């Protein structure tokens, strides 16, 4: 991973001149600048036929987002539980439905699959899908064991003509891409620490009249297959901090307890972790299923300012002695108890409506997973076209030359890659290990390499 806390502040400020211009013109909010036009709706031939495997709670969320994306055609849905299949079939009456994922992979017209089954079931499906020539979006964590994660990552690397995207959706989020320079450029002064949390009052336990089904549904509460709160949820935010810090963690010390949901479960409903990075940087992480106060947040603390990210909004809190950046004078401010937050909200296309602050404030932006799937669909199309173009010139006898062309010329929208997915999964597994034993786990660099 690049060591990238060293972005040049001047470069960053120069790059943000468009934002500065917008604010000087009387704009009050700072938004993600977008010079590009809104993406035109693709011609029907360019839509990607997708098969969705796994229709649990998150699978259905993915289905909702896919249905919003004009680039997607949900051509098949699959779940091994008929009731789940019937439920989702109502949303996509024209889609092919099956209880066997192999039937989806057999469909030649389906070029991409989204795998949203329980984590421990990913491996067989992903390996078969890659073997069948499908582009694969696999939910994160990729697997519940390092061996399975390795098998998946290696298989993905063996198929350079297919997109493999791990479901680290924050890596595709325009909001995060907009904020990355704030954290890395030195606008926050010297980085001191980070804090992140995920609070939600939710049991995780689901009930079913069928005991077998109930056991299958509650895989997250089964200690031998679940990576717990840190591994299933926390890994997304910890990965984001690693990304923003431009470094891999060196040690994790996690703690867990069953604080509220005392229904006989062993999997912790409340966890904390201290994640150490090089140069004395630490992330303090906490998550609970017992309380929802302040929900989800990540906060980066520097010597000049702190940046708080909550959902699709972000604010900067400046120290009194911090140098003036200029634009923040004009930016929108929000009060947080005794603090004033300078709005850093990324908002792609609302510049025209900037006069209407009230509306903008309540408007919900697209969730990160929407952008992750959009990237996935776009990237599958880009990669497939590039392969086709190359082969039309030179034939298909030089895989090395093709790989070089693809590495150089394919325009990918931001998305997590194989190695990032593998590293985040290893971290998820180690975080869970630490929480279960209560002991710190050191994370040597080679742990994150595929070897």
């Amino acid at each position, binding site marked *: 991973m690049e060591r990238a806390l060293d972005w040049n502040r001047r470069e960053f400020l120069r790059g943000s001149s468009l934002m500065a211009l917008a604010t000087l013109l009387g704009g009050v909010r700072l938004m993600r600048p977008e*010079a*590009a036009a809104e993406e035109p709706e693709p*011609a029907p031939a360019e839509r990607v036929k997708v098969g969705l495997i796994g229709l649990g709670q998150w699978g259905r969320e993915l289905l909702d987002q896919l249905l919003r994306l004009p680039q997607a055609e949900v051509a098949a849905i699959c779940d091994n539980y008929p009731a789940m299949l019937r439920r989702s079939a109502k949303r996509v009456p024209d889609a092919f439905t099956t209880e066997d994922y192999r039937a989806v992979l057999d469909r030649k017209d389906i070029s991409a699959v989204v795998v949203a089954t329980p984590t421990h079931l990913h491996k067989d499906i992903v390996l078969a899908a890659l073997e069948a020539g499908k582009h694969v979006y696999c939910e994160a964590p990729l697997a519940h064991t390092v061996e399975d994660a390795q098998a998946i990552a290696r298989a993905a690397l063996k198929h350079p003509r297919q997109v493999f995207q791990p479901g680290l959706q924050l890596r595709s989020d325009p909001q995060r891409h907009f904020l990355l320079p704030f954290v890395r450029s030195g606008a926050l002064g010297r980085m001191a620490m980070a804090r992140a949390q995920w609070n939600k009052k939710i049991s995780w336990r689901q009930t079913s009249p069928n005991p077998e089904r109930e056991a299958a549904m509650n895989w997250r509460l089964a200690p031998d297959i679940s990576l717990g709160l840190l591994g299933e949820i926390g890994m997304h935010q910890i990965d984001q901090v690693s990304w923003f810090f431009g470094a891999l963690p060196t040690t994790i010390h996690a703690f867990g307890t069953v604080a509220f949901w005392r229904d006989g479960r062993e999997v912790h409903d409340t966890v904390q972790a201290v994640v150490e990075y090089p140069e004395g940087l630490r992330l303090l992480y906490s998550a609970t299923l017992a309380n929802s106060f302040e929900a989800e947040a990540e906060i980066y603390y520097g010597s000049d300012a702190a940046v708080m990210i909550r959902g699709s909004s972000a604010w900067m809190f400046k120290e009194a002695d911090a140098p003036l950046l200029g634009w923040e004078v004009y930016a929108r401010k929000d009060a947080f108890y005794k603090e004033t937050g300078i709005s850093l909200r990324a908002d792609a296309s609302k510049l025209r409506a900037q006069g209407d602050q009230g509306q903008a404030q309540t408007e919900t932006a697209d969730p990160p997973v929407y952008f992750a799937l959009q990237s996935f669909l776009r990237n599958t199309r880009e990669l497939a076209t590039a392969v086709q173009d190359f082969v039309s*010139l030179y034939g298909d006898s030089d895989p090395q030359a093709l790989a070089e*062309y693809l590495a150089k*010329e394919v325009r990918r929208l931001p998305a997590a890659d194989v190695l990032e997915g593998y590293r985040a999964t290893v971290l998820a597994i180690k975080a869970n290990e630490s929480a279960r034993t209560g002991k710190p786990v050191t994370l040597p660099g080679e742990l994150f390499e595929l070897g």
Partner: protein
Amino acid sequence: MNWAEPCASKLMMRTIASRLGRWSRTLGRCGLLQTRPYWAHATVWLLLLSLPLQAAEGWTRFGPKPGGKSKVRIEGTSTIHDWQVESTLVGGTLEVGPNFPRAQSEVKPGKLDVRAEVFVPVSSLKSIKKDGTPYSTAMDDIMHEKLLKTQHPRIVYRLQELTLKDGDGAQGLYNAEAVGDLVVAGVTNRITMPVQIQVQQDNHLLISGQVGMKMTDFKIDPPAPKVALGLIKTGDEIKVLFQWEVFPR
């Protein structure tokens, strides 16, 4: 310069003919062939007739290789800034005939025996910034749509005539004028442009040139996409620059 290709082809044909002769003589000895010379001749002629063009006297066929220096670049203007798109995929074939100068003494202005058909996949054209880094996938989509990618997936150029102007045989550099048909978005225009042909040391060619044209010549309305800051209007005038690196086949 080493123009060994045609000679090698001739040698190969002679070898084939003699082998066929020997084979047919063997058959004849086995009593399978009574009219030996006629049979052998017919086979050789059939073979010769079916051989591709490059085997013709003095003609050499060239084509691109992956990782070469080929590039097509289109430059244009707009109300906000200049823009450029590029592709490194320049396909097709080039055939060079016997009157292509092989030495300084042979450089004579006039029509050259050259046949060429070149294509660029529309989807491989990508918008880039001034520094060569990717610009915008949304702009790529607008451009591909304007070029009618779905109906006409390739931009095609068919050379009609190549006239040698002058050149330095020692340097292997020739200036010429190319007349050809350019097909963009299904519309054909005859284009005349100066080109440079550089014969490289290991006998491959680098052909380069540039020419100005108008989008409206190809019935393309200059794109005017709506963006967050308003409307961007692109200028009708564009410049096409290319270099095509081809190797003997």
